[in-house]
């Protein structure tokens, strides 16, 4: 570690007794730690604002502004600061208040300087570790981000790898995946990594186009081709010439248009509606769908030949439920984004809130998570998002009994499934038997008896 970073750690002592200030600043001085002092709370707060020390030691009883208020104001400015209160009048009540307001310690005067010195030494090390950790976290975040797509799970690595492999070569490609899995991000990544990255990236959502205008939209038209065609107009294919055309919800494209699209893909030329000649175009096509196109083919709603043409190269965006190990990463990403967007100091999610999110099945995938975090970041009062800040449907464990049943492998005996389910509910209620019994809808004594019969013990939780 460079000396520049070392010297960036500082400690502020605030005490109205000059003797105490001197005692502390002499006694605590150690290499790599800069000590600032103030004999008045307001002076101390000003110093804090200007110099941002990582550690503050303040007296509790001071004229004008109490140490408790100093603590409050400091935590408001930077909640990561370690604030140590000292007092000659220790009371458990004020210790509780100090903890709740975010103090890192509450010391009884007279201060024994030896142990405090050691403690400050440990804090300095911790601060240094935190600085390093946040550097690492930044690095991790950059490393687990691929062209704006976030993930570190094997499924995502596999997808990143495929994107990297096919991007230089594909002409037409199909992206599949449920709604909210980020198919549009995949398309954008493909464009950016392709040789035509400097060309245009044009998007058409096929479900949003009126059927009669589809062909004119895609291929353009000439003046007089139909009523209202007052002048020549190029279509999206010509517009995307030398770039990429992203056709979202390709399953919603009318059959007649599908046939023409196939011809464009085969010949690399388009014919404007009403025109006699075709024009050469050089366009890469990424199509995306959240439907099962094979079913659509079987039901004659989608042309088989177009399907095969597109699905020669297929990239599948995994569901969020298949890659729950990416949840913390995604949470951090969205929290940082919404905190910046709302101008809030939101730092993350409490452990409880994270557990709640990990229990959810995420039918709406990453987009649902994005909405949930956006909602929570807006609602959060403190700098940590807690369960009550989440949308109400996530307050309780959200699984339906059907989903729960489905998560147990079929083929188990009833006793095995009962046992597994009871253990699971007990874990979710932190082993509180009466709470588990309430959720299971049986009296506590019954649950106790079942636990004995099914040989469930504390070890299983």
């Amino acid at each position, binding site marked *: 570690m460079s000396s520049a970073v070392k010297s960036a750690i500082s400690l502020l002592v605030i005490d109205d007794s000059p003797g105490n200030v001197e005692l502390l600043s002499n006694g605590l001085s150690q290499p790599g730690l800069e000590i600032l002092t103030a004999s008045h709370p307001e002076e101390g707060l000003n110093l804090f604002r200007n110099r941002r020390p990582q550690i503050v030691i303040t007296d509790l009883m001071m004229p004008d502004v109490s140490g408790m208020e100093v603590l409050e104001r400091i935590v408001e400015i930077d909640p990561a600061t370690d604030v140590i209160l000292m007092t000659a009048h220790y009371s458990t009540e004020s210790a509780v208040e*100090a903890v709740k307001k975010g103090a890192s310690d509450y010391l*009884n005067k007279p201060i024994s300087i030896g142990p405090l010195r050691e403690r400050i030494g440990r804090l300095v090390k911790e601060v240094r570790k935190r600085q390093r950790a946040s550097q690492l976290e930044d690095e991790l975040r950059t490393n687990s981000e691929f062209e704006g797509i976030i993930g570190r799970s094997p499924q995502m690595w596999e997808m990143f790898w495929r994107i990297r492999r096919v991007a230089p070569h594909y002409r037409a490609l199909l992206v599949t995946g449920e709604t909210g899995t980020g198919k549009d991000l995949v398309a954008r990544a493909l464009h950016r990594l392709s040789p035509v990255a400097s060309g245009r990236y044009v998007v058409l959502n096929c479900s949003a186009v009126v059927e009669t205008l589809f062909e004119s939209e895609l291929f353009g038209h000439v003046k007089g081709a139909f009523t209202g065609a007052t002048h020549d107009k190029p279509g999206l294919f010509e517009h995307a010439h030398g770039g990429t055309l992203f056709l979202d919800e390709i399953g919603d494209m009318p059959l007649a248009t599908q046939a023409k699209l196939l011809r464009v893909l085969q010949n690399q030329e388009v014919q404007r509606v009403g025109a006699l000649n075709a024009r050469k175009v050089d366009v890469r096509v990424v199509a995306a769908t959240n439907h099962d196109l094979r079913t659509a083919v079987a039901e004659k709603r989608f042309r088989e030949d177009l399907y095969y043409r597109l699905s020669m190269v297929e990239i599948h965006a995994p569901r969020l439920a298949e890659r729950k190990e990416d949840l913390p990463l995604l949470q951090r990403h969205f929290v940082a984004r919404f905190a910046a967007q709302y101008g809030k100091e939101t730092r993350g999610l409490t452990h409880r809130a994270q557990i709640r999110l990990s229990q959810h099945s995420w039918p709406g995938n990453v987009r649902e998570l994005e909405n949930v975090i956006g909602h929570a970041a807006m609602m959060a009062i403190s700098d940590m998002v807690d369960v009550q800040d989440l949308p109400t449907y996530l307050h309780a464990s959200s699984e339906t009994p059907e989903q729960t049943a489905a998560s147990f492998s079929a083929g188990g005996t009833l006793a095995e499934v009962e046992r597994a389910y009871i253990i699971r509910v007990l874990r979710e209620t932190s082993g*509180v*038997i009466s709470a588990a019994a309430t959720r299971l809808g049986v009296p506590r004594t019954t649950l106790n008896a079942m636990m004995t019969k099914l040989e469930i013990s504390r070890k299983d939780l």
Partner: protein
Amino acid sequence: MKTVLVADDKAPGRELLRAVLEQSGHAVYEASDGIEAVRSARELLPDLIILDLHMPMLDGFGVLQELRLDQRFAGTPIVALTASAMQGDRERALSAGFTAYIAKPISLSALRGEMQRLLG
């Protein structure tokens, strides 16, 4: 998230422990005397139990003895809250079978350190 049972007849003492433990993301349950402590411990099977030594009905030593007889608490850390004025308490607590002790008035850093060590 771990479950912690805190038994102390003084409400501010319980509240201080609750505040510190909840900040670390743990679930805290309270008992205000020894009998209630034994009953709650059997019902909750907490991951950690903190007992004030001086409580009405049944003191911390009594609760410890009761719980140590029960196999289910064989591996549960049980921590004593001792008044630092009473020098003998600490030695007595450790020899009676408490896993660790925390001296009152409680040092927040010592408490956080112990909890981290015992709850992981």
